[in-house]
């Protein structure tokens, strides 16, 4: 049977503050269990033990974890694992290389707790729009719950101890996923984003470390985890994000004033291609989705909404296409399947409104 729709994650809602530029806000905190080596040095029995400790801690707190599903990575078919990565619910490492890796996933897919990643525990929260404080608060709550059952590795001067020194202290990595078409089109992005590294922030593409910027999607995250409080880290990132949003909005206005007709044409053409093209690479699809999104955000184009655009971003990924097709597809076959799926989603949307 073909599943007609991938289950939507909370971050895809397209709602939340600043949804015109901020797709999602993500927070993850790294924790380890005292007395057990970090996962990459731990024995098979030890990582298994970690998995049991965490699943037991969650099971004993029905009210907090009742909405969670426990997913041992080994039990999942390969495509399901990749789908979790494409939806940003699992790291590539957890899905592909971890030993006794597992995921505690909340049913709205806003919270995923990764077990036996680089650290024993990584509590991750992804919310739509600019909601860093809210995401931190959620993560913090689950951290408190788990800490009641699990003795964390903590040092009075170094804070929470992690396998990689770049995570020590708060163990907190916060990031925002931004859509910055106007800054990129007007050639201002490099200068602006380059300046971010000077204030301790990192800039990446959609799928994390080492990925290039495609579809005008840019991820900004904190680098420093030690010597600042969680709130300070979040406040810094939020403050800088607001400035980037302002610049993006100003550039959109300039584009709109100078090239309104061209912009509208570009968005409608993109939508036309999404509807009628027969062969499409993922890179082309991402650029077209960006063009359509900009047109929608500027009020020039109808027939889509942000949730649909976010779902399409995931739909065009390899695992998602193969799950939808119900069989394995090579890259050429995927380029044929991709426009089919996009068409279906656009038609379903049209019927639903």
């Amino acid at each position, binding site marked *: 049977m073909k599943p007609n729709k991938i289950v939507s994650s909370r971050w895809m809602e397209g709602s939340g503050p600043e949804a015109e530029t901020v797709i999602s806000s993500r927070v993850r905190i790294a924790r380890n269990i005292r007395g057990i080596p970090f996962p990459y040095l731990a024995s098979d029995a030890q990582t298994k033990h970690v998995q049991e400790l965490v699943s037991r801690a969650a099971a004993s707190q029905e009210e907090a974890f009742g909405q969670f599903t426990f997913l041992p990575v080994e039990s999942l078919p390969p495509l399901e694992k990749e789908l979790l990565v494409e939806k940003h619910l699992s790291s590539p490492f957890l899905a592909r290389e971890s030993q006794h890796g597992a995921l505690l996933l909340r049913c709205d897919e806003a919270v995923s707790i990764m077990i036996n990643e680089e650290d024993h525990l990584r509590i991750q929260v992804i919310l739509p729009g600019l909601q860093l404080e809210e995401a931190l608060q959620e993560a913090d709550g689950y951290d408190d719950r788990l800490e*009641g059952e699990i003795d964390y590795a903590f040092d009075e*001067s170094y804070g929470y101890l992690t396998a990689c*020194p770049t995570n020590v202290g708060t163990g907190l990595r916060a990031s925002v996923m931004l859509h910055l078409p106007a800054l990129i089109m007007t050639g201002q992005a490099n200068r602006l984003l380059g300046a971010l590294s000077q204030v301790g922030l990192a800039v990446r593409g959609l799928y994390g470390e080492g990925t290039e910027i495609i579809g005008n999607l840019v991820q900004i995250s904190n680098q420093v985890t030690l010597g600042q409080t969680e709130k300070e880290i979040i406040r810094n990132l939020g403050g800088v994000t607001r400035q980037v949003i302002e610049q993006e909005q100003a550039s959109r206005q300039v584009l709109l004033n100078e090239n309104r007709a061209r912009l509208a044409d570009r968005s409608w053409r993109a939508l036309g291609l999404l509807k009628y093209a027969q062969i499409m690479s993922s890179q082309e699809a991402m650029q077209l989705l960006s063009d359509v999104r900009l047109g929608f955000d500027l009020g020039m184009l109808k027939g889509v909404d942000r949730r649909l655009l976010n779902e399409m971003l995931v739909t065009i990924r390899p695992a998602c296409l193969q799950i939808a097709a119900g069989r394995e597809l090579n890259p050429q076959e995927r380029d044929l399947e991709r426009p089919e799926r996009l068409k279906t989603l656009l038609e379903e949307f049209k019927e639903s409104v």
Partner: protein
Amino acid sequence: MLCQECQQENATIHITKIINGRKTELHLCRRCARAHDELDFSFEPQFSLHNLLGSLLGESMRGSREALGTAKVQCPSCALTFAQFSQIGRLGCSDCFTAFDEQLTPLLRRIHGSSRHTGKVPRRNEGAVRSARELEKFREELRLKVQKEEFEEAAGLRDRIKALEKEMEEGGSSEAK
């Protein structure tokens, strides 16, 4: 120059070995060089974060007399040596932080601009951390008072510090029981 082993490819890797004053030279192409097991380094560029960290550490150690000794420092719990840590850039367990404390503090300063956690504390550590942070604050105040030659207040602070230190010692030992 052709590779001295296969005599076909250009030699792009040149190695000079000096062992007990005897100098030997090797001129190899990439493929032949890779086959040499004793050349203990990879020719594939690997710019992962962890390697980068390792080199950050390596740089600070180079030229230091203690470097050799430090490389051998070993974590008593997980047996990771400092040399291994500088290579993989990841620690093995929570006790590594104590074992490599001396080298880690400067590294963390370089990465984060600080080596002291000021954020969240697990509930079971709260008491100890609050005291430690207070102690640090008192010590800084004491330093300032002494600088300003306000000795009376300094004496008061010194007594509070002593009391707090004693309290922490007792608290610490009772926790260990």
